């Protein structure tokens, strides 16, 4: 009798193992290289390729729209984007749309919360460095950096009743630290509107996860900074969460044998070299994006205090390979 019971149990287990592999959903994936100057991968489970393609195309359209809206270098016909607003808001107040309003509002909140360590009004300073990274030219001069620092006060950015103005006419907004995170969330909403409920969006290190895979939770590898792209050091398992990594290896330039990252410490006026990467786990990709950049430029203890306010967890990896993490940051393997 015992043997029969054991056999039946094993049979049930085997059958469930087999059937769990197929619930009529197949896995699809697509890679885009034309939004936010980075690589975006959408992976999802869908009933058919047609269903997936329709949803992914709609999400891609949304990403393209936001890419143009948050561009601070180029203006486009027919839309008022951040480049346009940077040009006009010093002279007169300008009406802004919902997507710009949300991003600036959140940017100003983070600027106040971090005492300007994360500052959307720092465009004058960050662009000096980003131009160096893009062109591979030498470092900006101290004179240019000090001059740029005079016009980065977020307190001179006024957003009232959907209208934006700058008290300091020389202010330039730079939403590079938060735009991708917000855009990834918007793309996620579009996937859901199109009937997709189990998906993973990775917009250049900003991951939004929803639902699960037939065999369990989504697994996100945290890049091993010492190795080449794609080789992970840790894995975290997530469900309905965002994981965002800011890494000095993402975008950088080398000069005089030293590597300079794209994340600028606004107090030192130089790229931050405190960590090689900071990964944030939280409920929203927009928050994760802002937090990972902010944490990059502060001590671990200051970072932990900030994380507590936002109910988020983090993992810091140092240049020498050592790491620290918050208690709630669970490593899967």
């Amino acid at each position, binding site marked *: 009798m015992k*043997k*029969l019971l*054991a*056999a*039946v149990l*094993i*049979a049930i*287990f*085997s*059958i469930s*193992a*087999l059937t769990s*592999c197929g619930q009529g959903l197949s896995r699809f994936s*697509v*890679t*885009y*290289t*034309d939004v936010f*100057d*980075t*690589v975006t*991968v959408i*992976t999802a489970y869908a009933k058919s390729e047609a269903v997936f393609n329709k949803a992914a195309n709609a999400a*891609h359209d949304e990403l393209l729209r936001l890419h143009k809206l948050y561009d601070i270098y180029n203006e486009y016909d027919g839309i008022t984007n951040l480049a346009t607003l940077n040009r006009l808001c010093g002279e007169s107040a300008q009406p802004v749309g919902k997507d710009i309003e949300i991003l600036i509002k959140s940017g100003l909140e983070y600027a106040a919360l971090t005492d300007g360590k994360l500052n959307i009004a720092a465009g004058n300073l960050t662009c000096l460095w980003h131009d160096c990274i893009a062109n591979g030219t030498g470092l900006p001069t101290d004179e240019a950096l000090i001059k740029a620092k005079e016009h980065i006060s977020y307190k001179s950015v006024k957003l009232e009743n959907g209208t934006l103005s700058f008290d300091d006419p020389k202010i330039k907004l730079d939403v590079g630290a938060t735009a991708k995170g917000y855009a990834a969330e918007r793309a996620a909403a579009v996937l859901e509107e199109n009937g997709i409920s189990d998906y*993973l969006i*990775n917009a250049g*290190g*900003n*991951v939004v996860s929803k639902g699960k*895979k037939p065999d369990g939770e*989504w*697994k*996100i*590898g*945290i*890049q091993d900074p010492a190795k*080449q*792209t*794609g*080789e*992970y050091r840790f*894995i975290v398992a997530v469900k309905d969460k965002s*994981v*965002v*990594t800011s890494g000095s290896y993402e975008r950088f330039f080398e000069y005089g044998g030293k590597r300079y990252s794209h994340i600028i410490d606004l107090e030192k006026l130089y790229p931050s070299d405190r960590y090689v990467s900071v*990964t944030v786990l939280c409920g929203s990709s927009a928050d994760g994006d802002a937090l990972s950049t902010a944490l990059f430029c502060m001590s671990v203890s200051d970072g932990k205090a900030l994380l507590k306010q936002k109910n988020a967890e983090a993992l810091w990896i140092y240049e020498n390979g050592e790491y620290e993490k918050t208690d709630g940051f669970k490593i899967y*393997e």
Partner: protein
Amino acid sequence: MNKKTIADIILVCSVVLIAAVMLIVTTVNKKNGDKFEISVGGRVYGTYSLSEDRTVDVDGLCVVRVKDGAVYMESSTCKGGDCVKHKPISKSGESIICLPNSVVIRVLGETDADAVI
């Protein structure tokens, strides 16, 4: 010994079934991919085997070479050339991406991580 019970039959069937499931799982989870995909501007350009040495000229944008079970970017018209400096890839999920030309080479197959950031 010829008096097989129902339990014996179910047991044997179950073992065979488990073995089959394990075989499927291990086959799918193997680390070294055997195929890779090239895509341009988000569209699949072609899928190729990693086990045959060959070169693929991708619309004059770049030349992809397969050698000894690994694939790499041999040359590219892009300005930075980071894609050409990338080491050859062979494991499932690994990719070489040329952002300026919008070319992605990716080894197909299941991976432990659904994304690496």
